[in-house]
């Protein structure tokens, strides 16, 4: 069976060229970039080249790029690194309720260490309100961390405006751009970004590699201690194959940015339009226009997300959902809930995230099988049609006690 991959926000296949480069630096050119002999020097060269390629993707300079093991580490380093290094200036951090867990759980950790964190709410489209941000700023605020684009609903945040305000107030601005980097044009200077997290595997580089952009002059403490790599910002033998792959993927992403975003946007809009026409009792999640080019997110009422995913999977289509069942947690997506959605509707969400290898035929096929699956699941649903919820007897409250 042909398999169609519609889950590019979860991860992406590594670009063939980037993978070939990674392979080369695993086998033939395998030196430790810190070694002074020829094996080491050829690795160092690859690291330097990649640093330039990643810098170019963001409009930064190479010495502002620090390689990490991925988005989660980048987020941890940005938040903890700024918090620890600037403790004397203040202890207040502003972020949003719809950040990735790499930000949220890091902030919760810092709360236990005596920091204060404001989690800004979002509107029904998943967007932070500038007014809320302005009100949240105090003279103790040292960091504003707002994601560039949300991973579930794709909503683009008003990053430029946030950057402007942060700059005005002399507060560092970090953005988790794990979804956006390589998939959406970004210029850190134009947008007043001081720190930016990116992760390779979201734009056709290998897993296990990422980078943190740190504007020159921004004070950040290292959080992983050891051999002084990455100019003392991130200890650990450089992952040269990953770094080389990341550099190549960044180069390709920059080169193809315009073409790719235009193509995905048109596929995305077609899917949104046709689902809206074909299937009743639905809700588009996220912002109607200010969203990632490849992100489609709908809630299908009366349907639960995991069973929808499994049915799609049986048809060869890979997608994702904000349903609790798919995450191994009890609650559905905190993002959908923060947008004001009920649990019921959140459980029935379906996220389709398109990538450069997807074709119109993939979309045809998806639009053919989806309505049928939804109908079948609704026919099976006690929530749909006549019934409504009948008598109680609800042992589910017990569930809340379990933690996974």
């Amino acid at each position, binding site marked *: 069976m042909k398999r169609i991959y519609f889950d590019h926000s979860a991860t992406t296949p590594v670009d063939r060229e980037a993978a070939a480069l990674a392979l080369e630096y695993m086998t033939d050119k395998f030196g430790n970039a810190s070694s002074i002999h020829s094996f080491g020097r050829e690795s160092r060269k690859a690291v330097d080249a990649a640093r330039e390629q990643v810098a170019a993707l963001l409009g930064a300079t190479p010495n502002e790029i620090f390689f990490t093991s991925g988005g989660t580490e980048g987020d941890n380093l940005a938040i903890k690194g700024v918090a620890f290094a600037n403790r004397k200036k203040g202890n207040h951090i502003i972020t949003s309720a719809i950040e990735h867990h790499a930000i949220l759980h890091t902030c919760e950790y810092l709360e236990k260490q005596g920091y204060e964190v404001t989690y800004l709410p979002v509107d029904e489209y998943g967007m932070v309100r500038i007014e809320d941000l302005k009100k949240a700023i105090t003279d103790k605020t040292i960091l504003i961390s707002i994601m560039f684009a949300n991973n579930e609903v794709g909503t683009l945040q008003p990053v430029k405006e946030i950057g402007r305000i942060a700059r005005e107030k002399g507060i560092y601005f970090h953005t988790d751009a794990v979804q956006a980097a390589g998939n959406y044009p970004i210029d850190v200077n134009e947008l007043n970004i001081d720190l930016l997290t990116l992760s390779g595997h979201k734009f056709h580089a290998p897993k296990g590699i990422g980078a943190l952009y740190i504007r020159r002059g921004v004070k950040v403490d290292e959080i992983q201690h050891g051999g002084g790599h990455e100019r003392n910002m991130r200890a650990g033998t450089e992952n040269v194959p990953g770094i080389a792959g990341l550099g190549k993927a960044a180069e390709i992403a920059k080169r193809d940015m315009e073409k790719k975003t235009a193509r995905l946007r048109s596929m995305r809009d077609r899917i949104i339009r046709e689902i809206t026409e074909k299937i009743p009792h639905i809700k588009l999640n996220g912002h109607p226009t200010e969203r990632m080019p490849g992100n489609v997110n709908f809630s299908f009422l009366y349907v*639960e997300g995991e069973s929808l995913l499994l049915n799609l999977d049986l048809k060869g289509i890979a997608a994702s959902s904000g349903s609790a069942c798919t995450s191994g947690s009890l609650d*559905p997506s905190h993002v959908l809930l923060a947008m004001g959605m009920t649990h019921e509707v959140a*459980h029935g969400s379906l996220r389709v995230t398109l990538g450069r290898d997807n074709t119109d035929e993939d979309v045809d096929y998806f639009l053919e099988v989806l309505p049928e699956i939804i109908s079948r699941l609704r026919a*099976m649903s006690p929530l749909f049609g006549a019934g409504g919820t009948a008598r109680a007897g609800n042992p589910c409250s017990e569930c809340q006690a379990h933690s996974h």
Partner: protein
Amino acid sequence: MYTEKVMDHFTNPRNVGEIADANGIGEVGNAKCGDIMRIYLKVDDKDIIQDVKFKTFGCGAAIATSSMVTEMVKGKSLTEALEISNQAVAEALGGLPPVKMHCSNLAADALHEAIKDYMEKKGK
């Protein structure tokens, strides 16, 4: 993550639907948790389950356990049916992922609710 048997029941669920003249209906779960199961019973005078159908909103495990429990009780007496536990349903499916054991494995509870409903209605 799911066994073949679970996937079989999920893909081709047995006894989906409603029974118009059901004399016992039970429902457990709620939409907040992401799982709701409703079981319809048609029980005869000898307390034998003549027909059983279900409607379920929930994940793969929820649908498969619902389907399985209906297969397990059809033609059984109520006494026998009351002895079926959620655990037994999971075992009949060749096991469930640990994370699903507590949250989505409620089909036997729904069955028992339906039997209780039947008994109450009969004034037993």
